[in-house]
C-alpha cells in the first residue's frame, strides 16, 4: 500500500490545489427562498394531476361515461320496450332494428342489455355508499379512541368479516324472499344492497381503522391538541380527512365488485326478481340456450356489458390508487 508522503506539502498535490469557483458560475440563492410562480396546490390537486397523466384513467373514464349515459337515458339507444315479449320471434337471430336478436321469451336482447344497466349500476353505487359511510365512521372511532370501544367494534366487525360476502348475502336474501316475496322495484334493489352491505362494511372498517391509527400519531395531531382542540374536533378535522385516500381507493374498486356480486345473486335466482330487468337475470335465463347451443348471442350481450362495466370501475380504482399513493406505484 503506498504511503502518503509526509514531505510533500498537501496543498501542492496535483488535483488538490486550492480551488474557488468563480461566483458568476455558482450564483447563490437566498437560503429559504421559494418559488412563487406556480399556483398553489394541495395534495388532492396533485393527485388529480397524476391521475390525468394516466392512460388507464382515460380508458376507464370512456367506459364509464358510456355506462352513465346508458343508465340515465336508455331511450336514446333503443325505442323498444325491454319487457315487451313477442313469443313468435323466440330465439330469432339479429335483424333490422334488432341488432342482438331475441331471447327465448321473445324479448329484444339489445333493449334488455341497455335497460339492465340501471339496476346493476344502482346496486353497485348504493352498496358502496352504504358500506363506506358506516365503515369510515366506525373505523375512525375504533382506531382513534382505542380501548374498549375499539375492542367491541373490531370484534363485531370480525364476526361479519368471517362470513363470506356472497354466502352471507345468499342466506340473508333467501330468508327475506321467503318472508316478503313481493317488494316492488326499490324494495328489491334495497334488499340486495343491504344484504351485500351487511357483509361488506367490515372491509372498509379495517382499512379506515388502519389509516387512522397511522395518522393519529403524526405530530400535527398533537399540535392541534396543544392548541386546545377537543379530541372529537381533532378526529373529524384532522385525522379523518388525512385517512381517506385508502378508503377512496377501496370504494372505487368495490363499485365493480358489487356490480358483479349483484349479477351473481340474480343469476342464482336470489337477487333481483325476474320482473326487474337486470344483467344477472338475463345471463341466468340465457344459460339454457348456451348449454344446448341454440343461440350464444343471448348470453353474449348482457355478459359483455357486465364485464365491461365492472372492468371500467376496476380500472378506475387502479388509476385512483396510483394517483393517491404514488409510492406504491409499480413502475418499470
Amino acid at each position, binding site marked *: *500500500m*503506498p*504511503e*502518503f*508522503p509526509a514531505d*510533500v506539502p*498537501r*496543498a501542492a*498535490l*496535483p*488535483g*488538490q*490545489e*486550492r*480551488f*474557488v*469557483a468563480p*461566483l458568476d*458560475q*455558482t450564483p*447563490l*440563492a437566498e*437560503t*429559504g427562498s*421559494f418559488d*412563487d410562480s*406556480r399556483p*398553489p*396546490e*394541495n*395534495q388532492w390537486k*396533485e393527485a388529480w394531476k397524476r391521475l390525468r397523466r394516466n392512460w388507464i384513467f382515460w380508458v376507464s373514464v370512456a367506459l364509464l361515461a358510456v355506462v352513465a349515459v346508458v343508465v340515465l337515458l336508455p331511450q336514446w339507444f333503443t325505442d323498444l320496450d325491454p319487457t315487451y315479449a313477442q313469443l313468435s320471434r323466440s330465439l330469432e337471430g339479429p335483424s333490422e332494428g334488432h341488432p342482438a336478436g331475441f331471447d327465448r321469451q321473445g324479448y329484444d336482447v339489445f333493449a334488455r342489455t341497455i335497460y339492465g344497466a340501471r339496476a346493476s349500476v344502482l346496486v353497485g353505487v348504493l352498496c358502496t355508499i352504504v358500506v363506506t359511510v358506516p365503515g369510515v365512521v366506525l373505523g375512525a372511532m375504533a382506531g382513534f379512541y382505542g380501548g374498549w370501544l375499539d375492542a367491541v367494534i373490531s370484534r363485531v366487525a370480525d364476526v361479519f368479516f368471517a362470513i363470506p360476502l356472497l354466502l352471507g348475502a345468499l342466506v340473508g336474501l333467501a330468508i327475506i324472499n321467503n318472508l316478503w316475496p313481493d317488494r316492488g322495484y326499490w324494495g328489491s334493489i334495497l334488499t340486495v344492497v343491504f344484504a351485500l352491505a351487511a357483509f361488506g362494511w367490515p372491509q372498509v372498517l379495517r382499512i379506515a381503522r388502519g389509516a387512522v391509527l397511522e395518522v393519529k400519531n*403524526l*405530530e*400535527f395531531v*398533537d*399540535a*392541534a*391538541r*396543544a*392548541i*386546545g*382542540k377537543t379530541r372529537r*374536533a381533532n378526529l373529524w378535522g*384532522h385525522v379523518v*380527512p*388525512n385517512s381517506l385516500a385508502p378508503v377512496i381507493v377501496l370504494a372505487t374498486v368495490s363499485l365493480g365488485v358489487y356490480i358483479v356480486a349483484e349479477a351473481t345473486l340474480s343469476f342464482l335466482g336470489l337477487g333481483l326478481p325476474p320482473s326487474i330487468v337486470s344483467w344477472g337475470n338475463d345471463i341466468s335465463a340465457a344459460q339454457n340456450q348456451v348449454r344446448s347451443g341454440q343461440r350464444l348471442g343471448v348470453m353474449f350481450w348482457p355478459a359483455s356489458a357486465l364485464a365491461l362495466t365492472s372492468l371500467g370501475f376496476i380500472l378506475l380504482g387502479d388509476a385512483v390508487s396510483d394517483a393517491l399513493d404514488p409510492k406504491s406505484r409499480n413502475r418499470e
Partner: protein
Amino acid sequence: MNPTPLLEIEDLRVAFRQGKQDVEAVRGVNLTVYPGQTVAIVGESGSGKSTTAHAVIDLLPGTGRVTGGSIRFDGREIAGQGKKVVRALRGSQIGLVPQDPMSNLNPLVKVGRQIAEVLVANDVAKGKDVDRRVVELLEEAGLPNAEQRAKQYPHEFSGGMRQRALIAMGLAARPRLLIADEPTSALDVTVQKQILDHLDVLTDDLGVAVLLITHDLGLAAERADHLVVMYKGQVVESGPALEILQNPQHPYSKRLISSAPSLASQRLLAQQRAEVREQAQEAAEELAEEVAHTDAEFGGGGDYVVEAEHLTKVFTLPGTAPWRKEDFVAVDDVSFRLRRGTTTAIVGESGSGKSTVARMVLDLLKPTSGTVRFDGVDISTLRSKQQQLALRRQMQPVFQNPYASLDPQYSIYRAIEEPLATHKIGSKAEREARIRELLDKVSLPWSVSRRFPNELSGGQRQRVAIARALALQPEVVILDEAVSALDVLVQAQILSLLAELQSELGLSYLFITHDLAVVRQIADDVLVMEKGRVVEQASVEEVYGSPQQEYTRRLLDAIPGGSIELSR
C-alpha cells in the same frame, strides 16, 4: 515525486431523467483522492454530494446516469465502461458504507452470513476460512463478543452496532477506497464519535483511502485532509480542510462556516445571548403582568413561569405473557424551573426521556407522579374547558419533524388561523390582519398563506409552525427538536429568528435537543438527561466551561469540530 492519484474525477456530469427532460444533479465536478487519504465532500441536502459518490460505483438511483466527464480509478477510466468493469471494482477495490444502518442490512439473514457473502463474492476467503474471517472483521470493526454477534440477526443490534457491521462489510475485501455516505448521521453524537474514531484508526492501519460524504462541516474538517464543498451540483470550493475553514473564499463556504453551530465563537455567542436575555426578561415581565390581568387563573408564579417537580412517567409494556406487564420508567424524578424570558435546554440522546418531559409539560401526557406548575398553578387542577383553553393559550409547542407537524390538507392560512378559530379570537378581518403580522414576524411573504405544506421547504414549514405557535401570544414555547431536522444554514436562520422573537415578545423557551452544539446559541440553563434521569443541571457557561459529570463531558467531546480553532 508525487504519488499517483487513486481516484480522479474530472468534469463529472450526472443527470436524472424527469419526464422527457434531463435534470442535471452534478455539473462539472472535479475531485482527486490519493491513496490513504481522507477526502470529504460537504454540502446541504440536494447539493449532489451523494450522487457524485454513487456515480463512482455506478449505483445511481432511479433514472440517474453519467452524462459526461471521466472517473479514473487507479489510472483506469471506469465511467461509461459497462457494468462489468465497475462490478469488478465494487467490494474488492472500492467499499461502501451506506447512510442508513436500519435499512441496509437484510433483516432475515444473520449478520455474519451477510459479511460472509461479501467475502465469497470477492473470492477473499473460502470454506472454513470464511467464518474465521467474519469474526475477525467484526472484531476489527469494534464489536465485542464478535463470535456470538455474527450469529445474531440485525434487529438484535443497536444502531451503532449495525453501522459497525456495515463498516466490517465495506472493509471485508480490503478495498483501497472506502466511500462512507453520511455513515453516522442517523446515530447519537457519542456513538458517532466512537464510530468515526474507530473508522479513522482502521483506515490508517490498512492504508485505505476514504471518501467521506457529510452535511456537517465540523465533522468533515475534523476527519479529512482535503475538503470539497458542493452547492447545487457544483464544487464551489476545495482545498486543504483547515485552510478552507480558517480562510473561506467562496461566499457559500463563508456562510456555511459562520452557520455551523460547533464552529461558532464562544465569546461572541455569550455576548449576543446576554443581550437577548436582558431584553427578553424585560418583555416577559410586562407580558406576565398583562396575563395576570386578563386570565384570572394565572399570575402567582413570580420569577418562574414553569416549574416541574419530581416528574416521573412509567409506561406499562407488554411482558412475556398477556397477564404479565413490565414497567418502563421513561422519566425518573425530573425537576426543573424555567425562568421568565429565558431558555432552558433539555439535552440527551435518543431514549433519554427528554421528549416525554416536554409532552408532560404541555399537558399532552399525564405524569405518573409529580407536578407541573404553570405560573404558580398546578396544571393538573385545571380541568374545566375554560381553564384548559387558558393554559393552552400560554404554552405552545413546535415539533421536530417539519414534514409531519402541519396538516397537509390545511393551507398555511388555515393552519395559522386554526388556533385563533379554536379560541374564538377576533373577527374574520382581524384574524387576517393577525396572520399577516405573524407571517411577517417569521419573515415569510404573504403569498405563502395560500400554499400547502407540501409546497414549502423544511425551513419554511418550521417558520409556519412557529407562526402558528405564536398566534395565541403564549408566554412559553416548547421547542421539541425544532431545528434538528434542518440543514445547517436553515438551522442557523431559525435559531436567530427564535432569539429575535424571544427578545421582542418576552418568550420563555423550553428547548429539547440532542445537539449540544446548538444549545450554546440559544439556551441559558441546561438540563442533561440520561436514561430518564437528570445527570447535570447548570447554566450554559458552567456546562461548557466545567462540566461536572462524565456523561456531559462525553457529550461535549462528541461535538464534531468542537475543538477546531478558527483564526477569527
